[in-house]
């Protein structure tokens, strides 16, 4: 378990840069759509409800898709140091992503599909005159193509790990977990990638199933699905896939903080147990999206709460705790990349708090589908997952060595943090006072929080714009050979 693989990096790094540019640009556009929705809810801009729900659909879908694309870049970049991966599949995934995005955009903006990212059966087929069948078919078909690309990539990750470590259990360090061997498991990047490959394959198969079932129902309405089964499949897909973004992104934290502090982040037994638990919990806790579906078996509702609580433990006790330990008295040099990595752990942990609270059945009873929900996942996504992605972009800028940090960078960084906290705070408070999410028009009681959110959102967009400009400049000047210069072997047991 001690091989480190280095391939030819030039074209590989170009593809990684392409992934990050595509992903971050889409994230920026999705943020603009998010601001537009807040402006509409805050009655600062007049937007037709039909168009509001279209941009709501593209915002939810695009944000997760783009963040997942960028997170794949992080995983692939680091995992390819240890495992032989297929570059053809990496490129195929980018191509299917772009084809899928075009289909989704045409479905939404040309054929008015506005079924939300949840596309809850049978909404795509029963739109009450809101959109055409073509729009729904393009959206569902586009999502299916996107999903196939991601599925291929995850299967390739699993293949590479199995080839190198014997099995997926080998990638998760089972010999250490079950006490057959002592010492350390595979590199953290490998452990995390194994978990991601398992959970994402599960998610994408669930997603493909419900997408195909919806497509069949769209064209042959007499073939119907059990709506509860469809709902379970939708959330199994959406929850796990969205969750996997942070588990891919955290690989950058393991690698970059270890390099910056010159301290090893080894996969010891508690680390491996935590990642094995995360694998199990991430697949099973999606039922916390169905806590208000009282027709579900009671045990499934209760298990949704219990496992959601349990899912907080690996990050609180191992991952975030490990990040605190590794920087403590380390003499680390704080720059934008390392700051983003540390911020991401902070964002992940504080995001866990309102998430766990909302996963409590009695609380969910009065907060489900209020703006509390976007409050906690914007915290998790904005301050956690995307912070990892932006940090990784700054890391590449740094290792390329041609771009120097400018005074704009720390300003943008702090603007991003402060206004993102403000945005999440406005969402959470809106949720506390009962404002429903996914409403094109809010009652007067809730408007002031929407306005605050819109203002915070504008500043976030400006900050992200500067991150992307910096990365754009870098990608034009870089020599794409930097990975040979770095590539610490800290984690190889």
């Amino acid at each position, binding site marked *: 378990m001690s091989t480190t693989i280095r391939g030819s990096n030039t074209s590989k790094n170009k593809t990684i840069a392409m992934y990050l540019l595509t992903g971050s640009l889409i994230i920026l556009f999705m943020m603009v759509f998010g601001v537009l929705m807040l402006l509409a809810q805050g009655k600062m801009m007049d937007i037709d409800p039909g168009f509001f729900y279209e941009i709501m659909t593209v915002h939810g879908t695009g944000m997760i898709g783009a963040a997942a694309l960028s997170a794949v870049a992080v995983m692939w970049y680091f995992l390819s140091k240890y495992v032989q991966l297929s570059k053809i599949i990496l490129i195929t995934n980018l191509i299917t992503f772009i084809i899928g995005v075009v289909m989704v955009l045409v479905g939404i903006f040309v054929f008015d599909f506005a079924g939300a990212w949840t596309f809850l059966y049978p909404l795509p087929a029963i739109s009450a005159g809101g959109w055409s069948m073509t729009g729904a078919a393009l959206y569902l078909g586009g999502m299916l193509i996107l999903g196939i690309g991601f599925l291929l990539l995850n299967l390739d990750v699993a293949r590479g790990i199995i080839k190198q470590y014997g099995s997926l259990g080998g990638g998760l360090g089972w010999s250490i977990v079950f006490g057959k061997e002592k010492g350390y498991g595979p590199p953290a990047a490998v452990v995390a990638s194994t978990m991601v490959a398992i959970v994402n394959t599960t998610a994408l198969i669930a997603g493909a199933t419900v997408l195909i079932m919806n497509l069949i129902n769209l064209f042959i309405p007499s073939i119907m699905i059990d709506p509860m089964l469809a709902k379970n499949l939708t959330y199994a897909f959406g929850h796990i896939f969205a969750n996997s973004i942070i588990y891919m992104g955290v690989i950058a934290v393991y690698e970059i903080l270890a390099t910056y502090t010159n301290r090893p982040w080894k996969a010891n037994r508690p680390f491996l147990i935590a990642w094995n638990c995360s694998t199990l919990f991430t697949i099973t806790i999606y039922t916390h999206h169905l806590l208000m579906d009282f027709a579900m078996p009671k045990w499934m509702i209760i298990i949704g709460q219990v496992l959601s609580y349990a899912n907080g433990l690996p990050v609180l006790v191992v991952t975030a705790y490990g990040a605190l330990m590794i920087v403590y008295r380390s003499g680390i040099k704080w720059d934008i990349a390392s700051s983003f990595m540390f911020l991401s752990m902070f964002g992940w942990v504080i995001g866990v708090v309102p998430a766990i609270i909302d996963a409590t059945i009695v609380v969910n009873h*009065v907060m489900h589908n209020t703006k509390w929900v976007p409050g906690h996942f914007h915290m998790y996504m904005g301050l956690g997952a995307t912070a990892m992605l932006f940090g990784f972009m700054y890391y590449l800028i740094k290792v390329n060595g041609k771009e120097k940090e400018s005074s704009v960078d720390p300003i943008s960084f702090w603007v991003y943090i402060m206004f993102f906290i403000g945005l999440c705070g406005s969402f959470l408070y809106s949720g506390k*006072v009962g404002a429903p999410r996914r409403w*094109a028009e809010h009652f007067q009681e809730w408007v002031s929080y929407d306005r605050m959110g819109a203002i915070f959102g504008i500043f976030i967009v400006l900050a992200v714009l500067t991150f992307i400009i910096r990365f754009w400049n870098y990608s034009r000047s870089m020599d794409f050979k930097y990975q040979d210069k770095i590539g610490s072997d800290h984690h190889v047991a």
Partner: protein
Amino acid sequence: MCLFLVLNHFVTNLTDYVQSICDNFAEKKNEEGVLLYQTAAWYLSIILMTLITVIFITVVLKTTKRKEYDGIQKKWYRFRTLYFIILLVVFGTATYCTLQDLPFERPVYGQGENPVIVDVEAFQFGWNMSQTEFKVGEPIEFDITSSDVNHGFGIYDKDMNLVAQTQAMPEYTNTVFYTFTEPGTYQILCMEYCGIAHHLMIGEIVVTN
């Protein structure tokens, strides 16, 4: 043996203490309405997030001087075991307490007291309800379904606070139990996105003394 008795005594006392906290919470909830949960969620989040912020800032401030990692690991791995146990106890207690008050469980009614059964059917974009006028203190069982797509049945009081909800699904019936404690006009808002007039799907309930 002696240790066992001490341990048994400790566990019994702890269980009683946790039970009393849960009972107090449930009692308070009944007195002051479900808004307690929103308020508790908000303040608990603020307190915990502030605590986490303080911890992260403290660690950042202590990153300047480098020390040997082995010593740090030894010390803080030991602390981690304690921290893990504390989290287990806190999460376990919270789970035990909050699972005492499940909204889908039929409440225990008094002798001869039966709930008013209300059939609710959601449709794009409105509500069909078999009854819309109720009395304060009257236990109600809302049986909710949908004739087309997924909807959400959310009851809002006159101050636009969400007091109860469940999903409205085609082919399924979700039952939620509620007893109004205040008179007034309550609104039923759709809590699950159901199409382009989702935000207009508003019903009304009148509660009198």
